[in-house]
Every structure is written in structure tokens, then in C-alpha cells.
């Protein structure tokens, strides 16, 4: 783990030690407080900054309330009692002014950071970005590597120090894609494409998930993000090509039915990889665009043809 000693961080000390100790050291990192890339690191830094600034307005409350309670307790006859005192211009100016100034500072920080960390904004890096298309299904994630011609379910491998450009959509209800250690979340919606950029600056295994409730299999919709060296990544690609099966329309239709990764794996009789991960050696070109455009053709998508719907039939597509 990285060194987190530094000025300003002690504020967070109590809580941070507690859960970093609990979570940070596991081999499946799932907290942005234990970041593995510039985006998550910047988000963490921003969090600490915000906490620091707000303390100026908060700490006086914590300190003064007990003092006041003690000093002006009913039995203390020595304290001044001024029942009709109810206004002071100076005090009022401070009460409005200080929070206002703090908010002004925070707003400036917010302005910069929101622009800097816009998920649609590409991350500057020397190498060309790796493009990945992400499809949210009930209850698993499909990752398509258009340039490599492969696809996986529930395993996102990326080379370290390479920026990754994700295009995301959903082929069921609205979902939310999140890899805490690398970048924040973004919704995925049927018929629409959202974007997310991320970069891992160290190798490791980072948990990813759908954070938006989508039904019974929702808690199983987790995936592993594997950041690895170039060499390892190429080996991984080769392995997917070698061990995977092709992803054609019929396979996709079956994959898209409501099921967890493990269930889908069993249904497709896919062998390679961990228990809820599926490898596809090839993908129909434009699968992602087809999925998106299905909703945009001005024709109804009845439940029979709608993955995730009650009454979806995975072979309906062919018989149509």
C-alpha cells in the first residue's frame, strides 16, 4: 500500500485507519480511498480538501455548544442573563459571511474538479487509449474490445498506465457502472451511450459493480478489473482468443436473458476462466451499435424481445 502520511490527512484519521485497515489490504480493492489511478486519487484528494475547509464552519459548533451549555446553565447565577438581547449586526455578518466565503472556496474547487474529472473527458496519455464497449445486462457486464475482436463477461482486463475509454449502454433497465479504485460511476441506459475514462497506474485487481438496484440478481453483478503489464495483457488477450467461444447473435440472445454471470456461464456451457467469467474469442461486428439501435428504430420492443423483461425468450430473435 502507498504511503498515506501527509499534512492535512490526519483529520480523516479516525475513520480512515479503521476501514483502510479493514478493506485496503484485501487483494480485491474496492475503495477510492485506496486509489489505483489518477481519477480516483483526485476524487480522494478533493474529498479531503472539502472536509478540511468545512471544518472551519463546523468545529466552532462542536466546541462552543458544550461551553455555552456549561456557562449558561440554569443554576449558574454568576453568568450574565440577557433575555431580550436578540441581535448583533457584527455577529450576523459573521454568521452569514463565513459560511458564504467557505462555500465560495468550495465552489471554486468544485468548478475545477468537475471539469477536470468529467467522465467524458479523455485522459491524456502517450499511448492511444484502449477502447472498450460495455453492455449492462441483467445481472452481469459484457465487455467488448472492438479493436481486438474479443469480448468477456464480468472480467475487464486493462494494461496499466494506458488510458481506457469506455462506451457504455444497457440492454435492460438503467444501471450504474462503478470501479471505485479507478473512477467514479456513470449510468448506463438502453438506447443510449454514456462514456467513462479511466487509467490504472499500478497493476492489481479492482472490484467493479453495478450500483443501481436492478432486481434479485443485483448483488451478484460484480466484476473484476484486472490491471496488468503490457505483456500480461497480451497474454490475457491470447488466452481469451484461444479459450473463448464466438459471441454471435444467438449466443448474445441467450447471454442477455436475466441471469447472473455464473448462471449464464452454465447456460452457455462456457469453460474457460473463473466461475462467473465468460470469454468470447470473437464478436459480431457492431454488436454494441445494434444493441443501442434496437431501441431507436421506431418499432416496439415487446417483452419477448426485451432482455431482462418478464417473458423474454432468448430464441425469439431468430424466429422473428
Amino acid at each position, binding site marked *: 500500500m502507498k504511503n498515506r502520511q501527509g499534512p492535512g490527512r490526519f483529520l480523516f484519521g479516525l475513520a480512515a485507519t479503521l476501514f483502510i485497515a479493514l478493506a485496503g489490504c484485501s487483494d480485491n480493492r474496492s475503495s477510492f480511498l485506496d486509489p489505483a489511478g489518477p481519477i480516483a486519487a483526485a476524487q480522494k484528494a478533493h474529498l479531503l480538501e472539502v472536509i478540511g475547509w468545512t471544518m472551519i464552519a463546523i468545529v466552532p459548533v462542536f466546541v462552543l455548544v458544550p461551553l455555552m451549555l456549561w456557562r449558561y446553565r440554569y443554576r449558574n447565577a454568576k453568568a450574565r442573563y440577557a433575555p431580550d438581547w436578540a441581535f448583533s449586526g457584527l455577529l450576523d455578518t459573521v454568521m452569514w459571511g463565513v459560511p458564504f466565503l467557505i462555500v465560495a472556496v468550495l465552489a471554486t474547487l468544485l468548478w475545477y474538479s468537475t471539469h477536470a474529472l468529467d467522465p*467524458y473527458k479523455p485522459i491524456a496519455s502517450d499511448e492511444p487509449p484502449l477502447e472498450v464497449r460495455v453492455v449492462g445486462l441483467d445481472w452481469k457486464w459484457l465487455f467488448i474490445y472492438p479493436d481486438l475482436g474479443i469480448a468477456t463477461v464480468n472480467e475487464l482486463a486493462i494494461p496499466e498506465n494506458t488510458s481506457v475509454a469506455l462506451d457504455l449502454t444497457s440492454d435492460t433497465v438503467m444501471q450504474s457502472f462503478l470501479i471505485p479504485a479507478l473512477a467514479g460511476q456513470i449510468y448506463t*441506459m438502453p438506447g*443510449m*451511450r*454514456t462514456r467513462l475514462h479511466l487509467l490504472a497506474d499500478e497493476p492489481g485487481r479492482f472490484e467493479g459493480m453495478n450500483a443501481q438496484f436492478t432486481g434479485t440478481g443485483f448483488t451478484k453483478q460484480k466484476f473484476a478489473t484486472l490491471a496488468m503489464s503490457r505483456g500480461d495483457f497480451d497474454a490475457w488477450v491470447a488466452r481469451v482468443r484461444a479459450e473463448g467461444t464466438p459471441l454471435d447473435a444467438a449466443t448474445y440472445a441467450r447471454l442477455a436473458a436475466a441471469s447472473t454471470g455464473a448462471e449464464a456461464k452454465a447456460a452457455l456451457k462456457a469453460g474457460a476462466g473463473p466461475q462467473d467469467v465468460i470469454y468470447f474469442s470473437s464478436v459480431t461486428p457492431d454488436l454494441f451499435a445494434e444493441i443501442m439501435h434496437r431501441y431507436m428504430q421506431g418499432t416496439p420492443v415487446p417483452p419477448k424481445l426485451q432482455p431482462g423483461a418478464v417473458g423474454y425468450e432468448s430464441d425469439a430473435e431468430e424466429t422473428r
Partner: protein
Amino acid sequence: MNDQDHSAELRSYLVGFAAALALTLAAFALVLWGGLSRGTTIATIGAFALVQMIVHLRFFLHIDLSRQKREDLQLILFSVLLLAIMAVGTIWIMGNLATRM
């Protein structure tokens, strides 16, 4: 009953009606025969509609600026403010999302 009042009020209704009629006719005419660009047309009829709403408020609903009690106008202005926040906000947000998806 006061006849003078009565005829003044009657006149006020008629004035309002005439103004509203003129504005409506202008808006329809503009769309039918105006020959302006779509954007300009919509902006113009939008302006007509706003004015006509004020006419209705003034002459039919009897809201104006010269009264002792101000609750009415405050209420309407406040409602319009909130409605503007909600409606403009909705259109802005949805429009922005549409361009990014």
C-alpha cells in the same frame, strides 16, 4: 348597483377581449402566412402568447399593479418563478443529456 362602475367594467372586459383576439389572430396569421424562419416565428408567437397571458390576467382575472393587497401578485410571480426554474431546468437538463447520448 352603480351603473357607471358597471359600464366601466364592461368596457374593460371588451378591451381585454379585443386585445386577446388581436394577439391570437396575429399568432395564427404569422404561422399561416408569415414566411419567417421557424426560429423567428416561434420566438414571435411565444412573445405574443406571453403578452396575451398578461392581457388575460389583467382584464379577465383582474390582477394588476395598483392594489392595496399584494398577495395575489406575489403568489403569481412566485409560482411563475418556480415554474420557470422547473420547466427551464427540465428542458435544459434533458436537452443537454440528449446531446451526450
